[in-house]
């Protein structure tokens, strides 16, 4: 669920292109080399780890990046490049599995796969019921980032977004499912409901709320809260952690009504012909030093318990980095809806935005 596009990402992409471009050129002559084509969100893996993997195994990585699950799916399906490994988000993982695009992987035979906590294999079951295809990579929650100097007391409920108390001082996510998820949870419904009345009730709530919303944003939520343009913003946990680095008065909370829990996972596509190399890569990602390097590159919550165990106490207690079990007790993973519900969502979302 990596959504941030920054100049850094461009620089990293460019440097990776250069690196892979160079190695690609030099190894073309000695074609005995194994290669893996890896597709990931941008800025979502420490590029040094790719070099380390090639150094250790001799397997060359062709690395490709995109920014949204839809972009990843479209590029994969269009078939221009045969990707061996894809990292994408929960509902898109489900779609790939459902459409028969993923290959089963024998995770139990991997040396380091046990570093991934059982909790996350269980969470992963909401998109991959038998844990046969997907390897958890990063996870997180959607919650509220707020400026403790500007709000009264501690915030623990989505109510602050709807009671009018902070009119024109709140920022919502400019993302259909995320916005509806908040209203559905606030009303006490499941975020994956297909009940039309419940979805319409949530839409009514959002329409009433619109006059109080300062803006609907995605990448800029953090910057706006840090800059003090708004007091409360709906934000992904990883972004909240970064916001906290800029301004220590900011706090992150997962509201008590529950929220969305997202998980990004790796799948091996059916186009992959070298399962052995793919498994080596996945195992490599689970290894503590590699997972730590990737964690310190992004600061999203890691499902790797070896990494969590080795963290500083301060980091471990930050709800944006390691959410407590009770705070995520009411959280759900967002799954792909049926076409009729998607259609309903699209219509209601347009109606809300055009209001």
């Amino acid at each position, binding site marked *: 669920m990596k959504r941030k596009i920054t100049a850094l990402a461009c620089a990293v992409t460019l440097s990776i292109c250069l690196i892979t471009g160079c190695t690609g050129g030099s190894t073309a002559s000695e074609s005995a080399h194994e290669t893996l084509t890896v597709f990931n969100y941008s800025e979502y893996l420490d590029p040094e780890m790719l070099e380390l993997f090639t150094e250790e195994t001799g397997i060359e990585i062709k690395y490709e990046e995109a920014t949204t699950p839809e972009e990843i799916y479209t590029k994969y399906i269009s078939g221009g490049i045969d990707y061996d490994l894809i990292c994408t988000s929960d509902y898109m993982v489900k779609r790939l599995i459902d459409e028969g695009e993923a290959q089963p992987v024998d995770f139990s035979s991997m040396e380091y796969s046990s570093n991934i906590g059982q909790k996350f294999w269980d969470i992963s079951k909401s998109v991959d019921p038998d844990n046969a295809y997907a390897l958890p990579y990063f996870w997180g929650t959607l919650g509220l980032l707020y400026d403790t100097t500007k709000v009264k007391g501690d915030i623990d409920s989505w109510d602050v977004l709807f009671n009018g108390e902070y009119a024109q001082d709140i920022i919502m996510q400019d993302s259909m499912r995320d916005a509806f998820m908040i209203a559905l949870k606030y009303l006490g419904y499941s975020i994956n409901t297909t009940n039309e009345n419940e979805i319409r009730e949530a839409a009514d709530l959002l329409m009433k709320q619109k006059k109080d919303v300062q*803006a609907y944003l995605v990448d800029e939520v953090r910057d706006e809260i840090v800059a003090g*343009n708004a007091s409360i913003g709906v934000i992904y946990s990883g972004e909240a952690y970064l916001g906290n680095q800029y301004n220590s008065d900011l706090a992150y909370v997962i509201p008590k009504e529950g929220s969305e829990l997202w998980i990004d996972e790796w799948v091996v596509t059916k186009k992959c012909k070298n399962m052995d190399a793919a498994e080596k890569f996945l195992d490599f990602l689970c290894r503590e030093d590699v997972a730590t390097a990737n964690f310190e590159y992004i600061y999203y919550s890691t499902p790797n318990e070896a990494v969590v165990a080795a963290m500083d106490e301060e980091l471990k207690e930050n709800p944006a980095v390691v959410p407590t079990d009770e705070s995520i007790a009411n959280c759900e993973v967002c799954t792909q809806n049926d076409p009729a519900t998607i259609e309903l969502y699209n219509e209601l979302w*347009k109606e809300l*935005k055009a209001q």
Partner: protein
Amino acid sequence: MNRSRTRLLAIPYIIWIAGFTVIPLIFIIAKAMTDQGGAFTVGNLFAIFSPIHRKALIMSLSLAAVSTVICILIAYPAAIILRESHIKKKSIILFILILPMWMNFILRILAMQMLISNNGIINHILEVLSLPQIKIINTPQAIVLGMVYDYLPYMLLPVLNSILSIPQDVIEAAQDLGSDRLHVITHIILPLSLGGVGSGITMVFVPSMTEFVIANILGGGKILLLGNIIEQEFTVSMNWNLGSGLSVSLMAFVLITTLIFGRGNEERAGGFSL
């Protein structure tokens, strides 16, 4: 021989047009005329008139129209002043006017966002001067401001060009025959520069109509333009058929505008050259 050589010269252009205009256009129209199952339909083309889309269309049309009018109101007097000024190096003035276009337009819009946001630079200055603060960010006005900021050079250049190319003799003749300054402007400069205004309108109105990035950044995602809906259909809803249908309908609107202003433009330009 000569003719075939001319034809050869056209080949890069033909390849370009075929590859990047004609073929994509065929794909878009094919998508627009089918539903998600692939069956023929015209529903996507008329979807622009459904209540929500109509709302966005009206918003797009009115913001584009307001932006265009403001651009004319700024560009036209500026062009007249420039013509009458005695600055020798008009090219330097022109250079300064075009300079903003060299900067990436997203960057300029982001800068505008910094300026006008609630805790932005302008409000800080107003606060220091103890003047009332402006609350313009995330409103349609902010989008208009962004569009005018971005597209003003596209209005200025053709208008300035047409006004500067009016021969001094014509104006002097009018003055000899007793026209005062105002009369010269309304009866000589205005009619002779309408061609430039026409192309300026096309060059500002068309991109403003299809705009969605400025609306996202300066509108705070609260104002939905047709461009935003098309973007949503392609990226979020994954309904490429509806997105294509709306794009084709929007192209029809753009075409109508271009025909209205473009045709008059040619006639006037023709009249002028005679």
